């Protein structure tokens, strides 16, 4: 009885209504808190976006706002927020992006995995009803936009819409750089079988293999995504000049990430930044090897969604900076990875993974609290060990996702 009520909630209408209601309530509550309390609900980043949007609406560069490190597209999109009574416009856009991402999840699960509406809805609810996701977007953080972009990318690729996929990929990389890790996975995935051209014979020679690999669709995706990415960059550079390149791109390579965050490299980078002779660029190596090469090579053809999830997970885990907003980048793929995964098949494994993931963060946050608010020097060993422990927990979870992905056969999942 109760399970049938619950499963009826996963039908599209209640699923999306509840998700929208959750966001509406948070949005209104947030506005109330902002108006009545000195402690703000709205994220500081949202003030950065809206300040930048105000500059843009006055014909100025969004980079006139310190710490605006995003594409001008974001500021353009939020131009309505320059009007005081439309201040929440951006939050509404981010919340709608959440819902759109959820709709794409349902669509991929139903059309491309053949799932029932209720079952697809139940998995989509992991994203749509997730309080963390809803809070982040209603506080005005733009990560939800990345969710919709990456899910749209997966939907376009699996639906064999090559041009659309290329455009979204180029746009996504322009927006936040990291989606470039999906390019090798998608290219690798786009073989004849996945594109529905039937299995052809193996080419006899190496040259033949190369020629076969350079299929028109792969070239089309590459060209469209590259020209979208470069086209947007040239346009923004033309309008805003060097500050666009400095703040949107170079900053992420050259930044000294000394302020404490979840990254295993954090304390190391703090120490290194105080010593001008050191360089820490080699930290990119394990991150890029895993997320751009090894993981897509082994998993992409078997299960593109799980590959993208594992790649993102590896990218965030091995990144030089890691904050909880980045967790959203891989959480969007959970509804696609979880069906048939060992975390659901063996609930003990799934619950252990979730608990350890939460505990790892809690241990770190406790150290962070002591540093940030009490002024105790917890950098070493407390916070350092907590960040390494969280890193190793994440590696263990990543191992599970990879094993699942490597053994997965999409067709079998379809039958479930």
């Amino acid at each position: 009885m109760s399970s049938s009520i619950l499963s009826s909630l996963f039908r599209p209408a209640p699923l999306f209504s509840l998700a929208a209601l959750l966001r509406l309530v948070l949005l209104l509550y947030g506005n109330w808190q902002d108006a009545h309390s000195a402690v703000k609900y709205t994220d500081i980043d949202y003030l950065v976006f809206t300040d930048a949007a105000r500059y843009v609406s006055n014909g100025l560069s969004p980079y006139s706002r310190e710490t605006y490190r995003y594409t001008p597209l974001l500021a353009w999109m939020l131009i309505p927020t320059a009007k005081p009574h439309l201040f929440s416009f951006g939050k509404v856009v981010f919340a709608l992006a959440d819902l759109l991402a959820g709709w794409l999840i349902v669509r991929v699960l139903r059309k491309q995995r053949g799932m029932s509406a209720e079952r697809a809805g139940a998995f989509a609810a992991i994203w749509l009803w997730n309080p963390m996701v809803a809070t982040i977007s209603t506080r005005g953080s733009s990560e939800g936009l990345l969710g919709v972009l990456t899910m749209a990318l997966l939907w376009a690729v699996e639906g064999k819409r090559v041009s659309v996929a290329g455009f979204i990929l180029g746009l996504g990389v322009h927006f936040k750089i990291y989606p470039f890790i999906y390019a090798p996975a998608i290219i690798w995935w786009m073989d004849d079988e996945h594109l529905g051209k039937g299995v052809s014979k193996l080419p006899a020679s190496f040259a033949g293999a190369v020629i076969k690999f350079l299929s028109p669709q792969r070239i089309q995706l590459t060209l469209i995504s590259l020209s979208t990415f470069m086209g947007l960059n040239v346009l923004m550079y033309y309008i805003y000049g060097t500050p666009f390149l400095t703040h949107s791109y170079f900053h992420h390579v050259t930044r000294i990430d000394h302020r404490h965050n979840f990254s295993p490299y954090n304390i190391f980078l703090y120490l290194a930044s105080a010593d001008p002779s050191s360089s820490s660029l080699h930290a990119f190596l394990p991150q890029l090897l895993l997320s751009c090469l090894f993981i897509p090579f082994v998993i992409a053809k078997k299960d593109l969604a799980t590959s993208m999830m594992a790649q993102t997970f590896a990218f965030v885990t091995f990144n030089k900076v890691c904050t909880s907003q980045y967790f959203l980048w891989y959480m969007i793929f959970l509804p696609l990875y979880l069906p048939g995964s060992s975390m659901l098949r063996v609930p003990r494994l799934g619950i252990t993974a979730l608990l350890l993931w939460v505990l790892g963060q809690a241990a770190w946050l406790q150290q962070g609290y002591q540093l940030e608010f009490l002024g105790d020097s917890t950098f070493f060993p407390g916070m350092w060990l907590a960040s390494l422990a969280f890193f190793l927990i994440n590696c263990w979870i990543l191992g599970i996702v990879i094993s699942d992905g490597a053994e997965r056969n999409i067709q079998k999942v379809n039958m479930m």
Partner: protein
Amino acid sequence: MRERITYFRPQDADMDPNQLEIHDTKVQGPAIEALKEHKITLTLPELPSELAGLLRDLEELHLRWATPASYNTLEPFSSRISPGLHVSYTPLKEDHDPEKLCTALQAFGRLDCSSPDVFINLSDGRQPGSPALFFYNELEKLDGFAKRLGPVVCSGPAAAECRKQLQDLKDAVSLDMSYDSTSESVKIQALWPLQKREISVPASPKGRTEVGILSRGAPPGMEAHEIGVSGVLAVIGETKEPSPALFAFAARHRAASGSFTSKFQQPTGLHPTLQLSLSTAAPPLDEDAECAPYAYLTLPKVIFADRYQLADELFLASKNLAAAKYVSEPVDLEAPAYTTKEWGSNVLLQLAPPKGKAAAKDWTVEVPLHLRYLKPSPTGKEEAGIPYPAVFWACGGEEDVGYAVSPFDRLNLGYDGLFSPGTTFWHVSPEPEAGDRLINNISVPVVTEGASQWVGVGTAVAVALGFIWVLMKLMGGYAKSGHDTVAKTAEDEGKKEK
């Protein structure tokens, strides 16, 4: 060269002018309770040639120093700045290299000013004619300055007397040096605090020396906004008898009633709150005058205010702040101190005093600030001293009040350029939080130096372990089912049939 030495006494003090002995080479008098101001005006040719050469590249230069020690003063010497050395200047040419200036400034002690980026640009939002560039450095005492300056400026038969006078700077609480290219003159003003001191003024070896023994007075016809002064004046070598003086002038800087203390709320964490406690919220003038209280902060780079955080009205109101009227630029909101080139930043905050009945009581303002990361230290802590802010009521006045006519006027204190020229500053007297220093100490958590030997290896090992673990999982997956869907499906089905 002209010198003027003023002894300024509290109002109720009395002295018989006959006690003053005026000789041809000096003025001598009994010990009296007074503060002392020594003002010297020099022309460029009277300066050592190197110094004159340095100044010729500048349009104006202003050095302002205040002691970190608490001291008592009297109107009209009531102006206050944050303790430390404040340097502002405008070069004649835009591509001016501050290196020569910085080398000269080393006379004060080791100052970190060699890079042009250390100076911040003041051009925004200030009165025209304000200096262009600004630099601040903490400076505890003038002892070193007096010692180093001796051989440079003291020469000839009066060298010994000159060095002795320089030594007096040890006890000074404030020192101003100003140069501007229009008058081509250098004005030096030093102030000694209110205490019992003997009147003793030697004649200047090269010029006129004027001595005044003054206190507050009320000349007839004095206007409400003016300060009246009475006493005796004498010019060494010119007058045999002290001549009585009674005059009034409009003063830019006044003393407000009450006092304030500044302290950091505990625990400080990485986002400390500076708490300013004022003893009264009563404005210095009656209701009709447009007066508002302000705090002008001088923040070394270890600490900063976030201009964006200080933009929200509700947030400001909860801290008893009205507005952040000025925050110097640039202020990087993320960079650690060791990569921040600017010396630090200035902030002008308008305070929001309680109204009505509560106005007579003491009140508190909270200034939210943020710490930058500092270099590793052996203990995991680094101590920093943040100078007291200047707290004052600013009352709007007529555009041209003629403050400059005042013989004791003081300009270019940093905050004055942010107000209209007619503004009167009513200074609230700073009281030390503890002891006698107008410095707020704060302990900044940093990573311990000893961590580096563990963190480098430990992080590498952990990352390697994680990387290898993930790689093993990938290889395991690859060994089982390759990289292709087709192969996997076939193999899987084969397995199932067994």
